[in-house]
């Protein structure tokens, strides 16, 4: 068990040099590495499922007049890829990118702007155009309701019940 301190030299010579001349050489990385995410603009419907799942609040859905913006802030991202797990349309893809340092913080923001659909009755915005289209194609039976905001939808539903059964209390 007892060893000569000099045997370190044998160990060292048999192992050679293990450090890399990074960044001039390829970084040590496996195929499984989780890096930054990429959101496919053509697929995203702006539903916010990823925003609800994101543990560090790196993904946010911001509303402003007529648009809904999905904002990805890399500075907060913990690269857990939970958003990828929960995205209903498979719009988020993981990459192996990790060299993300920058001297300009705006490089760390990625914005995806969605147009907002307006309620066909009261004209108030309620969801992204793409969600409306997504719901309409997925379940065509919602056709009569999907173009309204929740409040108008509710009213229409109550009216429909009234028409058919003569009121909710019946």
């Amino acid at each position: 068990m007892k060893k000569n301190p000099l045997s370190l030299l044998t160990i060292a010579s048999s192992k050679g040099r293990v450090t890399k001349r990074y960044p001039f050489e390829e970084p040590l990385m496996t195929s499984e590495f989780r890096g930054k995410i990429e959101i496919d603009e053509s697929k995203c419907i702006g539903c916010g499922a990823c925003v609800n799942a994101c543990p560090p609040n790196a993904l946010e859905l911001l509303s402003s007049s007529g648009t809904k913006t999905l904002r990805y802030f890399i500075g907060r991202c913990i690269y857990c890829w939970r958003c990828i797990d929960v995205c209903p349309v498979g719009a988020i893809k993981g990459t192996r990118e990790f060299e993300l340092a920058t001297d300009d913080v705006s490089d760390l923001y990625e914005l995806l702007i969605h147009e907002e659909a307006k309620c066909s009755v009261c004209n108030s915005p309620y969801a992204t155009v793409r969600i409306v289209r997504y719901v309409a194609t997925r379940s065509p039976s919602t056709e009569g309701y999907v173009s309204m905001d929740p409040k108008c939808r509710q009213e229409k539903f109550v009216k429909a019940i009234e028409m058919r059964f003569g009121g909710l209390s019946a």
Partner: protein
Amino acid sequence: MTYGPVLVSIGLASVLTLPTLLDGVERKLKAAIQSRIGPPIHQTLLDLTKLFRKELVLPRESMHTLYMAFTYLSLSIVAISSSIASIALGSIELFTASVILLSIIQAIHIAMPFTTYNPFSIVGASRELVLAVINESALLITVGLAILVNPLMSPPSSWRSTYFLLLLELLIVSYIASGRTPYDIAEAEPEIASGWLIEFSGPLLGVIIYTNLLRKAMVKLIVGIVLAGLTTGYGSMGLLLSLIAMTLLWVAYTVASTIVGRSRVDVAPKTMIFIHTTFITLLIVTHVLGV
């Protein structure tokens, strides 16, 4: 002799420049033993250049540090010149002077942190003091004996065991004086002591680091000079041999310090006293017996 001054200048120039590169070699070699690529050989030069480009920052409440640092540097250069001259010209007086100067340099080296009022560097320096008191005494005794056995700095007619013992003890003394593990106590316990250099920065740190390298070279040069005196004798060959010995010792010390750990402040002096007294006693006995 007309070539004397030329010889001394060449020797001095190499001792003033070599240490920065030898330190680079030390770092590279250490890295190799630790399976790393390590910095380039001229890294120490780059470090020093960078330090000298920075603004001058003095430790709190102290101008003394600055004066001391420059005394430290200039005395080191004087000591090196006189030791170079001693082996080139065969002057045992100059050799004696250079060793005494080395002791003074060591003392300044230890005193400097005390001017900073930083408890951590003072802890580091007090520890260095304990080791230096023992090691410097051993150095002076050993060098005294060296002068006694070879006062003319020329090869003896026959080799005695005293010479081997003498070189061996000088090796040990110079190894300890070069501040390497296991005797790098001043820089030990990184989280408490943080080394005695902690209060210095910028050009001041540059001066101190550079002079430390000179001091490290000087303690090895002494071994080389005694060895040259015993083998080739003084003159250009002697100077060359001492410089080669200094370089080789630097490499050997690097390897030795990489494969051991650090001692502790209460244990190190005990082991040192034991080693030194054993060797010096043996030296004196063999010298008196003439074997």
